[in-house]
């Protein structure tokens, strides 16, 4: 496969590319799905292909193919060149990539237990046992469980001289129970309905303990059927780390993507309220809020050695002591930002956030691991310190506007907090707010003991659409004066 990369780079340069890079990728994915005690899907998917990205006259072209032959690489590279020339017809500003990125490296996800070496029978048995335990709870009507493991092997080469080989592993799983009675439907899942997924091996599934959590999941789903409706009021909110992970994803991760800021996602994902003049001056949150894009966090789905344009993994501060200080960037957008701020683009460096969902997609700016740094509280102390409020756990629905300001989230589970203690259970909990006000009202974050990395395997962006896998580290946190209970 390495030979094909050289063919693409040679062909691109022969045809007049100012810059070219090529990624060749083989991927293997194994999935086991159980529903209502029946094995509904056991499958393996393999695919391979390559994508060539070229700059001609300062304009981008990209073409890709599943056919791995020298002849096809030459055809696809020529197609990428032709596409770049068509792009140049309506190009207002030449792309400038800044200083060269030249790296020869090998990276591999650290894995203790290769998930593909675990027998399929064991995976099926695990899910069937969890399924049985959830269904043991009277009132459970639907149960579901899934396990996924992925391996991707990627070669990257560029006309600047980079040659990078990376092997990535991911492992994920989830269980879900649906309780239905008298027109009411309540769901409980663990870790959530989309699964938690880590850049780890089978050891992650062992730690998840799906079987051990199954009885609780079933019992909580049934209990929610008779729970009170979440009240509609303004109160103090404590979010568990999984819901907080998604809050970070939507209200910090996306608005710090520099392509959104520069308008190149306007037609689909939207833009951002974090415009460049706010950099280093805008108060994003309270002084205890520190957020970082960290592509080196162990186990995170946004962890890698190099991004998909060959830039090394980095730890980039986004919010420091509540102030907005950084973006997720690419080589191209880093130079644009430098220019805008009157800095020297020739010295600007990408933050290393260019990621493609496969060989058939162009890299775009994506989240790595967007982490909220831990605070100092123990969770039980935090609850004890809260006179009146609500504790929310496990995401159920999410929506945010195209500038990433106005959000509404729903969670599966909610508990009243009264007099510093957990009170009654609520169903159909939602909360809504505006991003800076919400983070500005954060007055407590739990400590490192309660902190964990959370994997989101379903982040959509781009045209054609790309699904990214991102990570979010968080510990439970408290927010004051939040509107809850927005639902008929």
């Amino acid at each position, binding site marked *: 496969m390495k030979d094909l990369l050289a063919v693409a780079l040679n062909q691109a340069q022969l045809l007049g590319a100012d810059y070219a890079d090529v990624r060749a990728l083989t991927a293997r*994915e194994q*999935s086991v*799905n159980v529903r209502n005690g*029946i094995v*509904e*899907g*056991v*499958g*393996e*998917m393999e*695919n*391979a*292909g390559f994508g060539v990205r070229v700059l001609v006259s300062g*304009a*981008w072209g*990209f*073409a*890709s*193919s*599943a056919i791995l032959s020298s002849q096809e690489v030459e055809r696809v590279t020529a197609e990428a060149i*032709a596409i*770049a020339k*068509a*792009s140049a*017809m*309506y*190009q*207002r*500003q030449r792309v400038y990539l800044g200083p060269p990125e030249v790296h020869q490296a090998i990276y591999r996800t650290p894995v203790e237990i290769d998930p593909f070496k675990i027998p*399929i*029978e064991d995976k*099926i048995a695990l899910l069937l046992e969890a399924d049985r335990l959830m269904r043991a709870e009277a009132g459970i009507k*639907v149960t579901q469980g899934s396990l996924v493991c992925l391996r991707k092997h990627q070669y990257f080469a560029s006309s600047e001289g980079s040659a990078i080989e990376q092997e990535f592993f991911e492992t994920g799983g989830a269980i879900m129970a*649906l309780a239905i009675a008298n027109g009411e*439907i309540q769901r409980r899942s663990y870790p959530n309905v989309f699964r938690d997924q880590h850049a780890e091996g089978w050891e992650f599934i062992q730690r998840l303990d799906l079987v051990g959590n199954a009885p609780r999941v079933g019992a909580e789903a049934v209990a929610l059927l008779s729970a009170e409706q979440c009240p509609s009021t303004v109160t103090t909110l404590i979010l568990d780390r999984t819901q907080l992970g998604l809050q970070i994803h939507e209200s910090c991760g996306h608005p710090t993507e520099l392509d959104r800021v*520069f308008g*190149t996602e*306007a*037609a*689909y994902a939207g833009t951002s309220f974090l415009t460049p003049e706010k950099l280093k001056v805008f108060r994003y949150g309270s002084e205890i809020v520190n957020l970082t894009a960290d592509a080196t966090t162990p186990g995170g789905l946004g962890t890698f050695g190099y991004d998909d344009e060959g830039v090394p993994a980095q730890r980039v501060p986004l919010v420091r002591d509540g102030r907005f200080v950084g973006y997720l960037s690419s080589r191209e957008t880093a130079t644009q930002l430098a220019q805008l701020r009157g800095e020297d683009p020739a010295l600007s460096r990408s933050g290393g956030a260019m990621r493609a*969902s*496969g060989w*058939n997609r162009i890299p775009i700016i994506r989240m790595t691991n967007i982490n909220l740094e831990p605070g100092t509280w123990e969770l039980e102390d935090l609850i004890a310190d809260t006179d009146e409020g609500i504790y929310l756990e496990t995401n159920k*629905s999410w*929506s945010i*506007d*195209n*500038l990433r*300001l*106005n959000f*509404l989230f729903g969670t599966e589970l909610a508990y009243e907090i009264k007099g510093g203690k957990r009170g009654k259970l609520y169903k159909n909990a939602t909360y*809504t707010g505006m991003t800076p006000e919400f983070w500005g009202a954060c007055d407590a974050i739990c400590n490192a003991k309660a902190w964990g990395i959370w994997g989101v*395997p*379903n982040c959509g962006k781009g*045209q*054609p659409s790309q*699904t990214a896998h991102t990570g979010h580290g968080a510990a439970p946190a408290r927010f004051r004066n939040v509107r809850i209970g*927005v*639902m*008929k």
Partner: protein
Amino acid sequence: MLNEHEIKALLQGVISRSSGDETEVLFLGLDEALTRFANNEIHQNVAETNFSLAVSVALGKRIGMASTNDLSAAALDQLVERATQLARLQPENPDFPGFAPPTEFPKGRQAFDEATASATPEFRAHAVGEVIRYALDQDVVASGAFSTSRSQWAIATSHGLFAWHPLTLAKLTIVAMTETGSGYAADAAWEVAQIPVAKWGKIAVDKAIVSQNPRDIAPGDYPVVLEEAAVHDLVAFMGGGANGMSVTEGSSWMSGRQGQALFSPAITLVDDPDAPEHLPIPFDFEGTPRQPLSIIREGVVGDAFYNRQWAAKTGNAATGHGMPPINPFAPGSAMGRMMFPMHLTLQAGNTPIEQMIASIERGLYVTRFNYTRQVHPREMVVTGLTRDGTFWIENGEIAYPVKNLRFTQSYVEALQNVAAVGASLHREPGYAGFTRNPALQLAQFRFTGKTEF
């Protein structure tokens, strides 16, 4: 790209390798190119040649699945062996109905257009260039994407079924923006010539201009006129909820309500592959002929759609809505037998949109919704925001633009409150192809939050 005969030989070659009791092979091929523009320039411009073979091998009622895009003889041997091995290692699925038998598919309309299949990067650049030029003339910033694709699907089973279908599709989305205004237009068709790119560009740009300097508006319940693009959201959620599995399990808006006059009699929602303009796809990804379906018939809750497994389990007929058991073009998606409606149409009424506006004393006009998510499935409570042109209606006229609002609204209730249905249908690009929708006038819609833009 392989032709029908080559694909047939390929699929038969896979089946001949299988020692399973039953075997199903699915071929998916795609050549797609997309020209993306933003800030009045082309910034991403891509092409993809992709294909995949997915094989399902059944040993009794134990089914293993595997897919590859390596078509070498050795890879095909491994593919069948892997699926067989996976089948061997699992318990029976008592609901497995077997793979599809041979079937005669109706020779309907074709949906393959050579001009769409062979569209060049220059063709797409010239088309979006017209949008960019008009936007520049009007001092507006245009963004969007224009794609052209050709695809082919084929399925074969060890029972002798073989079906093949080629398809072309073109899609356009445009968002035009000024400092304080934005506009939107979109279209999709199997013939690229059916998409008047410049016309849609003008509509989006002109709306960006008239939506400038929006005023504040308080959240609350308002009568609304929903443009066709906003109605797409209701159609997609309600249509998707007619899933036979969810209906049977009790988690759908439709569960226990079939035959009830639940909605306004003005509402008829169908999933009909034969409807004019829709993509005439004769079979689904399990080899079942696609059947027209009335999901809502003049306000009465109609029929759910079923794939082979859920049809057998519930005693219904399979309706031809099965999805690929492995979707190689969507890595990470669950493997298994899902179902989905690909030909949704909300039937038109007879009220022009101008007449809807004229009949409202005080209300809102919504171009489209953004980032909508289900909050509760039973009443199909959905939250999301307005986007790209929201206006205040006063005394029967569009009075002025307003800032975007968040809504949290039961779509079941929304379709009970229908005051008028638009007289024409618009194609709105969606997850699988497009939906066809009229505008709607609703007596009440619940807005629960506001934005500052």
